């Protein structure tokens, strides 16, 4: 039984680590500030959740697990706030998001080759 729990917890820890690395790769590969926020979102959510679940299996039913649950809750409440604060600051600072094109149904206004503004 202990072996099963150990294996499960290692699987969770390793996949959590893998998602952390994927998030970091995305951080490097994505083209602009806003898209990179999405990559950091992977590290903030699934990576953290998997690692904390893995640690909870290691600690068993104890006070330590309560603390890990609290960490998870606080993390899931605060990271979106931090990400939003970053995004909002970028918007207020006139960082123009890189857009694929503007031929979507929501934006019917004609635009030349999809460049939202000439600033770079």
């Amino acid at each position: 039984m202990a072996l099963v729990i150990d294996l499960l917890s290692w699987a969770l820890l390793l996949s959590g680590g893998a998602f952390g690395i994927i998030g970091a790769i995305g951080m490097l590969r994505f083209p602009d500030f806003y898209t990179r926020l999405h990559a950091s979102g992977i590290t903030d959510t699934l990576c953290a959740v998997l690692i904390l679940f893995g640690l909870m299996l290691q600690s068993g039913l104890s006070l330590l697990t309560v603390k890990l649950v609290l960490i998870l809750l606080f993390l899931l409440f605060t990271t979106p706030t931090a990400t939003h604060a970053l995004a909002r600051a970028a918007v207020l600072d006139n960082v123009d998001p890189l857009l694929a094109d503007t031929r979507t149904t929501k934006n019917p206004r004609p635009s030349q080759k999809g460049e939202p503004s000439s600033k770079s």
Partner: protein
Amino acid sequence: MRYVISLSLLLVVLWLAISGVYKPVLFMLGGFSVILVVWLSVRMDVVGVEHNPVLFSWRLLAYWWWLFCQLVKSNLHVSRLVFRTRDVKPRLLSVPVPHEAAVAKVTYGNSVTLTPGTVTLKLTDDTLEAHALDEASARELEAGDMARKITWLERREDNA
């Protein structure tokens, strides 16, 4: 008064859970800090403002479970995009916010940011502007499943 008592109880439980060392001196320090925090909260007039029935409803657990499934799905989706950056087609979108309570609006904005693939850029009284990583993420948000779930979560307030 009800809120003062519930806040004190919550803080006591939190302190007991985090401390783990049960000695008389530490109990006194813990009790003192609880009283200090409650007194400060009363002075700041924030007691009861953040205490919303929504926070303690069983629906919240159901919503969190649903959100967790969404999280896993969108994480896998964005992870795939990390290795196929050709498919990254960012766009901006705005969706209506149908909720009444401020807590529900904030929950919506936070949930949108929490799921990778969409980030809330601006949240006003009735609309939410977001940045989406690709067409699929944008369409998922525009479909409004999340907004409906939070409406369902909020409905608890009326009959509570």
